[in-house]
């Protein structure tokens, strides 16, 4: 009993990665001018309108006639009074701030092109901060990722490659439209832009190098500046920037949910498995993954503590012995390991 407890205590020194998390709160940007279409406390279903986004925000000045009881407030909506014959009679938008020294003159944020953005997740609206953000606590379980780019999206989860694979641009066709593709260890910017063009809603990948991320973001900016609104498309990076496969427990989870509707969130970066309870299985506490260092991506069983161990460049770090497949046990820095819970 004492020995078992001691072993369990020692395992606490290895960083834990939670595989699934419940009640994740997604944040959706609501910059000044955008209009929330939900109220705090209200329930939303996936696909319900969340906010009205202005694609061409601009500022105009309008005369705001008010009474003492009806004082205009920054952030409130404003529409011209009926029968108004001035130039601003068609202008509608959000009050920003009074123009100094100009009486009733106010700056108003408005625009001509408006799109309604749907909620990618089902859940409860926890907060609406005009000019800032909307927060929605999602139903179901979520898998957190390292980072994300693009916009939140929803689609059918499809496995395009094995966890070690790489998806080339030629491997994406219009048959994948509407899906969120799991593409293995890495992908390049060209494949990402092709996926977006083919109507794919999102990509889940283990790693995305900085160069590909920059290229994709530049492409995304051009897309947003285009006249016609593009459908939502996001990239979810599970691990980081250096190439490695999708972790085994994560790959098993994605395999289990293949074919179901999922949501890809950008802030925080996560994949939300809506509604259904996946009832996460008990994780083996001794199963570890090498997250970084020379053996990054390898998985195995941790055997015991190695104490302070001398590694490359004469650096002494706390380490553990790990057995990977049929290989001899090796000492791995504790900071390079992670286990799942």
């Amino acid at each position: 009993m004492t020995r078992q407890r001691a072993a369990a205590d020692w395992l606490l020194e290895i960083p834990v990665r939670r595989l699934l998390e419940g009640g994740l709160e997604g944040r959706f940007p609501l910059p000044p001018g955008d209009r929330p279409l939900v109220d705090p406390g209200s329930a939303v279903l996936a696909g319900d309108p969340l906010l009205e986004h202005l694609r061409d925000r601009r500022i105009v000045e309008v005369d705001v006639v008010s009474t003492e009881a009806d004082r205009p407030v920054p952030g409130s909506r404003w529409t011209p009074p009926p029968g108004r014959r001035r130039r601003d009679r068609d202008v509608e938008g959000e009050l920003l701030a009074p123009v100094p020294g100009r009486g009733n003159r106010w700056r108003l944020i408005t625009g001509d092109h408006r799109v309604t953005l749907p909620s990618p997740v089902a859940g409860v609206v926890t907060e609406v901060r005009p000019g800032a953000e909307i927060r929605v606590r999602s139903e179901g379980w979520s898998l957190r990722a390292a980072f994300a780019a693009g916009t939140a999206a929803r689609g059918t989860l499809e496995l395009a490659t094995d966890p070690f694979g790489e998806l080339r641009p030629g491997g994406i066709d219009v048959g994948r439209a509407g899906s969120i593709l799991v593409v293995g260890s890495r992908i390049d910017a060209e494949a990402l832009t092709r996926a977006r063009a083919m109507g794919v809603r999102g990509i889940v990948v283990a790693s995305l190098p900085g160069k590909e991320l920059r290229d994709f973001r530049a492409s995304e900016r051009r897309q947003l500046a285009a006249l016609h609104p593009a459908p939502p498309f996001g990239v979810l990076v599970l691990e980081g920037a250096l190439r490695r496969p999708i972790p085994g427990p994560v790959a098993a989870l994605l395999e289990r949910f293949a074919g179901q509707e999922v949501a890809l969130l950008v802030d925080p970066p996560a994949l939300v498995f809506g509604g259904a309870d996946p009832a996460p299985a008990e994780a083996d506490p001794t199963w570890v993954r090498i997250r970084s260092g020379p053996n990054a991506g390898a998985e195995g069983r941790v055997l015991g503590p190695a104490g302070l161990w001398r590694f490359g460049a004469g650096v002494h770090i706390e380490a553990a012995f790990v057995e990977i497949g049929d290989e001899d046990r090796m000492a791995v820095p504790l900071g390079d390991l992670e286990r799942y819970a």
Partner: protein
Amino acid sequence: MRNEQPVFAAVDRGTATTAVSLVGKVAGRWRLLGSTSGPAGVPEEALLERLRGRLATVDPGTAASLALGAAGSAAGARRLSCVTGAAPEMVVVAATERVLKPLAAAASTAGWRVRPLVLDGAEILAVATALADPRVAAVLAGASDPPGADERPLIGDLGQLVAAATERRPDLVAVLSGVLAEPGGRTEALFQPGRPGPTVLAPSPATGGGEPLRALLDGLRGGEPDGRRALAIATATLADVLQRRVEILEIGMTGAARIAAGWAPGETAVPRVALVPEAALLPRSFSDAHLEAVMSWLIVPLDRLRVRDRLRELALAPWGDAAGDGALLRLAAARAALARLLAATPAFDELPPADLVVAAGGVWAVAPGPAVALALADTYRRAGVRGLGLDHARLLAPLGTIADAAERHAVMTELRDDLLTPLGSVAMPAGLRAGRSAGRLVIRGAGGPAVLDLAPGGLELVDLPPGERSIVEFDLRDPVRFGLRTRHVALEVAGGLGGLLVDLRDIPLELPRRLERRRELLASWQAALWPEVEA
């Protein structure tokens, strides 16, 4: 603490790692029994148990006398804990660039991540969007007093925009400075009284060299058990205990601190503090310029894209990849961060030079002591002679949380031999003329005198182990600056892991522009102090 348990745990929780030290009464004195660190998510109890187990194995007698013999027995030990969190964000807005600069300088050394905005020529919408960003906790708006001709037309807009932002977000802290801070004035009247976020009238950055404004902004951050504030308190006590002028250079994952404390008999030292998030190991605003700065210190031949990706990995898992190339990359990033910290705090260079410079923060944890000494010598370029130390156990900040000054002083006095790893000393003359020889150095140590020829531009290493002291006599051809301008000087220096570094390189350090040549030179300096590295 005096009449309580004979053991306590000091815990420094950072954003990347948690450091835990076990301190116990041995032969009537507080002594450091062990220290360790682990990734931020690892519970401190697990780290404490690691230390306890190690003590019980190595010295069962001491463990038993402190009631630390049994598993789990350290869990009940008293804790001295401090937490260092991510820096909050502040928008600093002014009418013109001229006014913005001193405001941003004060805010960026007060522990705030600064987002600078200028109204002149900017789109109002972009300014309003930045003010509405939920990540922004406070806004500092300022104008000259009296306002300059360039800012007068924009001051009305400045007040209205900030006031409108506080109406959207009543919790937003608004700080007004300069002419905007006139009590009962037109600008203050724009802000709703009684809202959750305060409206603060602050001094101008021109008052007292900006220090009153900096101190006020630092106070607005909140978070009393903040690790960096505790570090500042401990630095003042350390200066008092050692009776020396101490300067701390702390580099963390999300911020950095430069703290200087002097010492005078019978006086309580007031430390000078600058908290600079932009000097974090990897600041949030990481750009190509930051990458170039890291590349310029790197001795391993990695291309820019690879370095960028590895730094991104470092940001995601700061505790990982700490050996081999990873250690070198970390130290290159640390040097770049240290250079940013020193550049952001020029006012410290006006203070009397420190007798002891101490490196602190988790970034140094995995580097060998001599390599840390070289990193300090590479970046902290002030003429003079000084000792170098390392807060190896990250013990200073937790000790700074002891509220009673006398008790803190007593504990630190007893722990004085354990607090810092002695890295050695550095002698850094300025104003050397180029030539074959600048003169000679005579080292009078326990083993008899040794003579060293001094070559300008070089870095000489004199073996001087920890605990030893030695008299060094500089006999130079031309007068140089050692604080005073002189040709002959004799000084006492203390030994350490890096020995005595006689640093005759340029002040500031000039490195070759060509990448290969620069790497070669950096590697040659490092080879003597970090022989395990293969460049």
